[in-house]
């Protein structure tokens, strides 16, 4: 004998069905990984896709005759890589090397090089929409290398394009 469903059972069943049908669909916003670093009290970022690894400051071997914004070469597990002095590249004053100094190993379009930065502040994912076009009032020295800006911890972060930096060599 079939047990007759009472009104509340029927209502609950109906509500469950509706709930199932009205599942909230999370619209996943496109994210991008970024590597935030500091330079002379300002924050800059590279796109995470362009940074293959982050190395502690190691012995850099000077190469005479190389452009003056190349600090020299380093031995990375048997591979020889160049290291860019990003301060000098942009025409900024030099930063002091400290325990926080890092070499960001960047790779773009088949070209690979380390970039010496004062410190790595953070590595995280952000929605693409949070990156805004660069300000037109940017410093001329870096303008051509900047692809966007965003606010991070109440400070402005300037996005640098590794490919554009490499293309200058």
């Amino acid at each position, binding site marked *: 004998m079939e047990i007759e469903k009472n009104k509340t059972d029927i209502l609950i069943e109906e509500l469950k069905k509706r709930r199932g049908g009205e599942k909230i669909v999370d619209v996943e916003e496109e994210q991008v990984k970024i590597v935030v670093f500091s330079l002379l009290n300002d924050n800059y970022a590279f796109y995470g896709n362009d940074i293959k690894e982050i190395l502690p400051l190691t012995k850099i071997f*000077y*190469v*005479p005759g190389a452009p003056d914004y190349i600090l020299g*070469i380093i031995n990375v597990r048997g591979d*020889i890589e*160049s290291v*860019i002095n990003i301060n000098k590249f942009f025409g900024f004053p030099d930063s002091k090397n400290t325990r926080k100094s890092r070499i960001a190993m960047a790779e773009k379009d088949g070209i690979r*090089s380390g970039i010496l930065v004062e410190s790595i502040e953070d590595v995280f994912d952000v929605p693409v929409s949070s990156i805004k076009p660069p300000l037109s009032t940017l410093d001329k020295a870096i303008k051509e290398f900047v692809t966007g800006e965003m606010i991070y911890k109440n400070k402005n972060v300037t996005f640098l394009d590794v490919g554009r930096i490499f293309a200058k*060599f």
Partner: protein
Amino acid sequence: MNYNNYQELQILTFNIGGVNMAVDTTQIGRMLEIDEAVERNLKIERLDDRISFYDIAVIYSAPKVLMINDKMPFGVVIDKPDDIISVPIDSLRPLPALISDSKCPKAIWGVALMNDEVVLLIDFYKLQSAE
């Protein structure tokens, strides 16, 4: 002769301005004292006149003149010649692209990895076209 014929490279190591460098010994005719080269009226040039160290003051403390195998009209002054050693070809590396593609003198043609040290390999034949 192709690359496979080379198993190792015999190099003379030296140091200029704190930078470890080396040259293939087959490029060297002989090594002279500076005085001897001057007495013979040979044309000599410091290596750092050919490959710029920019604002680094290069001081030679134990200079020698390397006369190159007949192919060059001058001797090259190097500092602190250290040793003649054989390095396996496997321990040689090209310069990174950002340096080799730049205006860096082509006379620096590669790098030899020696323990934890990096030695720049200089092609003396290409020094003539260096800056």
